[in-house]
């Protein structure tokens, strides 16, 4: 019985994903709703991302400085920090924050709409709630995550620069020149693509959990909670897979 339920669930998720992907290639697009959701995504996460990325930049710089100094390789600091931020730290911080912030939000929003039969009401008035509610949200997270990651990278590097600047008053131009020469196109592209996948996963998991939320108010809480947990796990899985793929190109 448990195996059967599990398999049914897998089939259900598969159908959900297929539906979403079909809608990606199937106009009409919900342009207005997508734009609205994009703003909501930015609104909800920008403060937290700024805050954590800035501090992560400072902490990372301060912690790697002594070990570089012990090799007399302090001048490598910008290159080390920039690669760490662009390749890994920026996407990861953004991904996790968005998983927490957006995953729970989407899960709870759609969950309460499901529980109070608002989604059914849209369904019976023939207003295609799936593309309006689900596809627009997933599109928004997929589009916005790469942007947010770029933003997080910049903020983290600023944090790092200010730390360096505080210690040995090196110039802004010099620091970011160093950063620019050390970050490759591959670094940037792979990080953007990876973060688009993060965004897709967050939107998908949140919507699925909300759309299939159990009846009753506890259902909404459960939906929000599982959305966060599962999308966080997925972010690490995607991070790992992304690393493998990028390594193929790096050689």
């Amino acid at each position, binding site marked *: 019985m448990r195996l059967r339920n599990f398999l049914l669930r897998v089939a259900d998720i598969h159908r959900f994903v297929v539906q979403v992907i079909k809608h990606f290639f199937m106009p009409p697009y919900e342009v207005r709703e997508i734009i609205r959701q994009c703003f909501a995504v930015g609104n909800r996460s920008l403060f937290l991302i700024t805050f954590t990325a800035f501090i992560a930049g400072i902490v990372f710089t301060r912690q790697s400085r002594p070990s570089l100094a012990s090799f007399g390789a302090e001048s490598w600091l910008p290159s080390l920090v920039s690669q760490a931020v662009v390749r890994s730290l920026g996407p990861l911080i953004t991904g996790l924050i968005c998983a927490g912030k957006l995953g729970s939000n989407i899960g709870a929003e759609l969950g*309460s*709409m499901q529980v*109070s*039969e*608002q989604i*059914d*009401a*849209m*369904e*019976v*008035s*023939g*207003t*295609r709630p799936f593309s*309006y509610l689900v596809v627009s949200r997933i599109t928004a997270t997929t589009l916005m995550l790469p942007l947010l990651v770029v933003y997080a990278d910049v903020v983290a590097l600023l944090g790092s620069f200010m730390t360096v600047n505080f210690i040995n008053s090196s110039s802004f131009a010099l620091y970011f020149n160093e950063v620019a020469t050390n970050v490759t196109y591959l670094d940037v592209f792979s990080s953007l693509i990876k973060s688009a996948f993060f965004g897709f996963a967050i939107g998908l998991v949140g919507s699925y959990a909300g759309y299939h939320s159990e009846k009753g108010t506890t259902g909404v809480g459960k939906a929000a909670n599982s959305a966060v947990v599962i999308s966080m796990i997925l972010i690490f899985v995607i991070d790992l897979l992304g690393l493998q793929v990028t390594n193929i190109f790096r050689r």
Partner: protein
Amino acid sequence: MHYPETYTSTSHHAEGERNVVATVRNLKKSFGDREVLKGMNLDLYESENLVILGRSGTGKSVLIKCMVGLIRPDSGTIEVLGQNVFSLNPDELNALRLQVGFSFQGSALYDSMTVRENLEFPLKRNLKIFDKHKLEELVTTALEDVGLAHTINQMPAELSGGMKKRVGIARTLILKPKIMLYDEPTSGLDPITSMEINDLILSVREKYKTSSIIITHDISSAKHTSDRIIALIDGQNKMEGTFEALSETTDPDLEPFFKY
């Protein structure tokens, strides 16, 4: 389990020549191990108010959700306006759903939108009406029909339960449905508000010539609105007739309803 003889012969009915607008035949639905509907039958005639009376949890909501294709039954057939609900493709189903209004038990107003946006939502997204004046006119008419024109810019959270029910009804009326399905329109309301809703149901029929299924366990609402009553007991249509006829029943399942 038995069901009344009349149901085995389709379409025509003792009442006369009126057209059937919806039929349900031998509908069965279980959730897990729990059998909810065990062979439900009904016919809905043109411009009649059919009340479905039954206790909580007997599957009344499940029945009408099946009728609009929200829940897929395990077996049985449902025809609405001459179309088999479960053989339609998504576009055909949407077209059919435009003609069937569904008033939800919990109103189901979109709580992130104002009353106006709630009513405009199906107009814009289904009928593709974007003209401002046209929208305004349709929205105000529908709200006036339910006596709530003054709430147009309020959020659902600011409305009382009875007002929400009426806005929910307005939101379905705006599409000018041929069939209305009311899921417990008076539950949780005081007797006076209930009476207002009952009158609303009657006036909707007058104005829009709708055929309606009204689900309720409120006996005074059944008395007020029904042309005919079907008692849904233990997942089946146990008995049917006018309010007067059923109120004389001695059936142990049904009698308590009338002896409130």
